[in-house]
């Protein structure tokens, strides 16, 4: 459930998705900068941060 909420946040407002994943860390500020470069870099970075935070399947 949280995952889908985060994914939605990543799609609509990438920095919000990163904030929900790692909080106010460096990645969050970096993501704001990347999103200001016309969204797409920020989206890729946010998707990466979200994917990194997921538990690994064996």
């Amino acid at each position, binding site marked *: 459930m949280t995952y889908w909420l985060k994914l939605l946040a990543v799609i*609509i*407002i*990438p920095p919000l998705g990163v904030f929900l994943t790692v909080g106010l860390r460096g990645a969050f500020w970096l993501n704001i900068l990347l*999103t200001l470069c016309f*969204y797409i870099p920020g*989206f890729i970075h946010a998707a990466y941060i979200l994917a990194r935070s997921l538990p690994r399947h064996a």
Partner: protein
Amino acid sequence: MHIQQDIDQDLALLRKVAMRMDALFTIPGTRVTVGLDNIIGLLPVVGDLLSVVPSVWMIHRAHKIGASPGTLAYMSFNTALDLLIGSIPIIGDIFDVLYNANLRNYAALETNLNRRAARAKQVFNPQLDAEAWI
């Protein structure tokens, strides 16, 4: 005369589309206008790409009517700006609401066509030609 009528009809249609896209209604108490472009554009990239379709159609029609290359370039620039900045989530949506690219495009097209028509009348003025012949 038929040509003139066709252009008037085309312009009326373009004006309607531009109004729908940029000025569907006004936020009460302000002069800020909101249109379909702004509503669809809330979805980051896909929405802005969708809202570019009518803009490109308008540029195509303007080319067919006979707008000058400079005006077409200006319209393309406006559309590209609308797409690029509009795709940034929150800031871009605010920009979209305030900028009204389609209305600007329509106004530029109308000015351009009026100027061309005026110039054409100056060159082919029947009255002046008649006087010259007398």
